């Protein structure tokens, strides 16, 4: 029996009532705000993250536009500091950290497991409310003094800044719990709700990534919460913890902060690795190369990521021996990252590569993250880091990794959009958006590497004339990048209203989310499917008469 037989245009398609799905089975705003359906919660995260991405993007464009001609003084130094700070805070805490785990994790993980929901559906809704509270508080900050400390909140400047450090700190504190609880929910779901036949080595790699991400969220995030709490105590009660003027230690904050914030990089990157493995395999109709190597390297990265934080402190006054040890561990992380890249490349070998929009984003990630990872070697090498630390080189380096993640996230949105909305996006426009994002990205950030190694410091309102050309190219690139993002948003929204109806399995995927109809039933599956090899595409056939893929549905 095939589930998608119900929804496919079988006998009399005209004016037939739309089949029951999770979007239409209940209506009204209350049916969303009180839902415990993982799919709806995923979409509610997407709505908040979309707003945040827009704001963070506008702030980035304000910074870049100011830097086109700083002598015009488009922004005052205060506004400039606010813009780059809020850009960082919003993009990291409100967009990239929750992006893949909360949106795609929520929507896809239970479906991939053939499950009806996550392990703790009510906790899942609670997590969303925590996140929403954090988002609202962060937005309130915009109108109540803003934030001028840089997203890193380094003390003692943040202990004494007149801007609204306290509110942002509280917001991040609350959102941290959302992150912890989501990670926990994903881990328990994957641990306990796997269907018959899905051994851990038969899990789709996205599940491995979601699990590894949960580990980092649970280990790292509490330390951020503690750090923020201490900072708030210092601001409110003048307890001297970080501010030397009150007997504290300024550098201690950096250790605490990076103990979370470096793993946070992997909270962002590891889920992207997972999505990447799904995109590459489905759109090349080929099994993943080196499944175990990719799975183990996710876990290796997750574990190593919590012991490399000291590489942010090479010039902080940290002792030489400490720095050398952190440098060694940092280079060790490069190995599992490289393994993944080679495995994805090998997956392409003798595949059937379709240059769909998700695949173009996946290939963009391969190049972009390649540069981001390789330039990480410069930053990990001690003497080179001394020179490039806190310059545009570092800015370019982490944007290459972070926007690499965003590329995969957008690729993932395109990939699962037919499943989420039941509608197909516009393929040509999608490809154009991928190309714009790719070109815009390179144009914005390649010149920043050169500026940085030539000595241009970051977070600067002004720059020496010799960097004018670099800044002009970079700003031009940022406009192209923005156009690319806008086109993605337009295409996805357009699809909801005008897209062709999506079949159950538009790409010929072999993981279980493609076994159910698009959009899925409210309870996902009528009966629990049995899992097989998630990357065995020999069992997904193209039916030339129906013009769609036929998934196996093993009862």
């Amino acid at each position, binding site marked *: 029996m095939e589930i998608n037989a119900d929804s496919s245009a079988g006998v009399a398609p005209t004016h037939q009532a739309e089949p029951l799905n999770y979007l239409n089975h209940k209506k009204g705003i209350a049916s969303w705000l009180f839902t415990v359906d993982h799919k709806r919660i995923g979409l509610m995260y997407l709505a908040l993250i979309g707003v945040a991405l827009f704001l963070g993007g506008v702030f980035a464009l304000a910074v870049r536009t100011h830097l086109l001609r700083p002598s015009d*003084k488009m922004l*005052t130094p205060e506004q*400039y*500091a606010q813009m780059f700070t809020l850009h960082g805070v919003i993009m990291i805490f409100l967009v990239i950290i929750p992006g893949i785990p909360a949106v795609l994790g929520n929507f896809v993980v239970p479906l991939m497991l053939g499950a009806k929901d996550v392990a703790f559906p009510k906790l899942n809704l609670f997590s969303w409310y925590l996140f929403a509270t954090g988002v609202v508080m962060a937005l309130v900050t915009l109108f109540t003094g803003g934030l*001028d400390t*840089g997203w*890193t909140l380094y003390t*003692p*400047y943040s202990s*004494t800044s007149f801007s609204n450090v306290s509110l942002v700190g509280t917001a991040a504190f609350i959102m941290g719990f959302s992150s912890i609880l989501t990670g926990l929910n994903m881990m328990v779901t994957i641990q306990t709700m796997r269907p018959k036949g899905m051994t851990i080595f038969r899990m789709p790699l996205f599940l491995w990534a979601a699990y590894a991400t949960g580990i980092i969220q649970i280990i790292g995030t509490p330390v951020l919460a503690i750090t923020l709490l201490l900072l708030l105590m210092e601001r409110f009660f003048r307890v001297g913890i970080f501010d*030397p003027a009150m007997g504290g230690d*300024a550098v201690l904050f950096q250790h605490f902060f990076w103990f979370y914030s470096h793993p946070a990089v992997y909270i962002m990157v590891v889920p992207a690795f997972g999505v990447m493995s799904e995109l590459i395999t489905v759109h090349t*109709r080929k*099994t993943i*190369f*080196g499944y175990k190597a990719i799975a183990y390297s996710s876990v290796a990265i997750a574990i190593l990521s919590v012991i490399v934080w000291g590489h942010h402190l090479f*010039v*902080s*006054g940290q002792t*030489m021996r400490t*720095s050398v040890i952190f440098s060694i561990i940092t*280079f060790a992380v*490069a*190995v599992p990252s490289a393994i993944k890249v*080679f495995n994805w490349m090998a997956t*392409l070998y*003798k595949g*059937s*590569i*379709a*240059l769909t929009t998700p695949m173009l984003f996946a*290939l963009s990630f*391969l*190049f972009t993250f*390649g540069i981001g990872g*390789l330039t990480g*070697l*410069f930053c990990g*090498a001690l*003497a*080179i880091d*001394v*020179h490039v*630390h*806190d*310059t545009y080189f570092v800015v370019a380096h982490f944007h290459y990794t972070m926007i690499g993640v965003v590329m995969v996230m957008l690729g993932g949105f395109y990939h699962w959009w037919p499943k989420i909305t039941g509608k197909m996006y516009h393929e040509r426009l999608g490809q154009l958006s991928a190309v714009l994002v790719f070109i815009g990205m390179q144009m914005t950030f390649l010149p920043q590497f050169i500026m940085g*190694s*030539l000595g241009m*410091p*970051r*977070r*600067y*309102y*002004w*720059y*020496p004339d010799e960097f004018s050309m670099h800044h002009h190219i970079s700003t031009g690139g940022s406009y192209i990048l923005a156009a690319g993002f806008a086109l993605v948003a337009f295409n996805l929204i357009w699809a909801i209203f005008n897209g062709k109806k999506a079949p159950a399995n538009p790409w010929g995927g072999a993981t279980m989310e493609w076994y159910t109809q698009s959009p899925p039933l409210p309870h996902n599956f009528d009966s629990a499917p049995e899992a097989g090899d998630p990357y*065995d*595409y*020999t069992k997904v056939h193209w039916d030339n008469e129906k013009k769609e*893929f036929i998934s196996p549905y093993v009862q």
Partner: protein
Amino acid sequence: MLNHLGATSALLDSPFRMLPEKSSNFADPVDFAFHLTFAICAFFFAIIVLTTIAFVIKYRRKPGDYPNPKLATHNESLELAWTLFPSVLLVVIFWFGTLPFIEMRDLPDDSECIVIKVTAQQFQWSFSYNDGAKTSSDLMLPVNRRIKLVMTSSDVLHSMFIPNFRVKQDVVPKRYTFLWFETNAEEAEYPFYCTEYCGQLHWAMGSLNPEAPAKVKVVSLDKFKEFLTAPEFSADDLTPELWEEYRNGNLEGVTAAFPDLEIPDLLAYGQKLFTAKTCNGCHTANSDVTLIGPGFGGRWGKTLNLVGGSTATFDEEYVRRSILEPNADFTTEFAAQAPDASGMTGAMAGPMRPSERELEALIEYLKTRKAE
């Protein structure tokens, strides 16, 4: 605004230049590590890009063709090769990155080098040398010498970055941190920057300061010695009679009494003090732009609305009182900070506190400022 500092050559102007001119003992080993890493990365990046593009072209899906490819799941020897080979190269990068770093952190003994004490504050560097000489924006260095900087901050975190020397070190309040390097043989000027975000004027701390762009000035040993021993003009050294002459614009008596000194007139003296007393860290002199405190261009004579409802005129008395008692008479523009001009309060408590004669020179300077 700031022209390319230091020597230029055809190579340096090339768009492919990746690092600044080399001007210290650390430049060679750091640049070697940089270029080595660049070569290794370029090699891997070329492999990734070329292989991927070749695969995409060769194995591109033909329309309507959905083959069921054979399942090649893994290849242990291939995977071992692409794990071990990069690992070896990582060790190489680590090695050449670590060697110069160990040298940077191995501080020379004080007897082998010139020790300069560095104090950072929002948004100004000050340097004090042996023999009591001080500078408040430029860093003076002799050629061909080992230099050790002993640095601390009087407020928040800062970081000393001299790109041409390839050195950088955070400067931390209530702690000392160190930098050492050896200058090259040629006399030149180099930019230097603060590279740890220290507030809204972070960028103005160093060579991009709009009032007084600071530079690292490497000079011959003779000139350096001359600088160390050169006496500075100070109005406080004048006898009451000479001071009367001086403040009334008659420099003859003063010039005769101090033949070795270059005597600025009261206005130029005020301008010098504006930088020397680090006023320019928070205020612009020739514009009305607010940095941390108000800009002074065109402010003289204006009526100010004070917190609490009263008004005041920006005149001699208001300026004098605001300098000596930073927390008194806040204007409504800065009500958000009232009553805490902590940066100024700190400066006024220390060596930056001007004498009465210095105050008069500063007032003379502020009187004549126009908004550009």
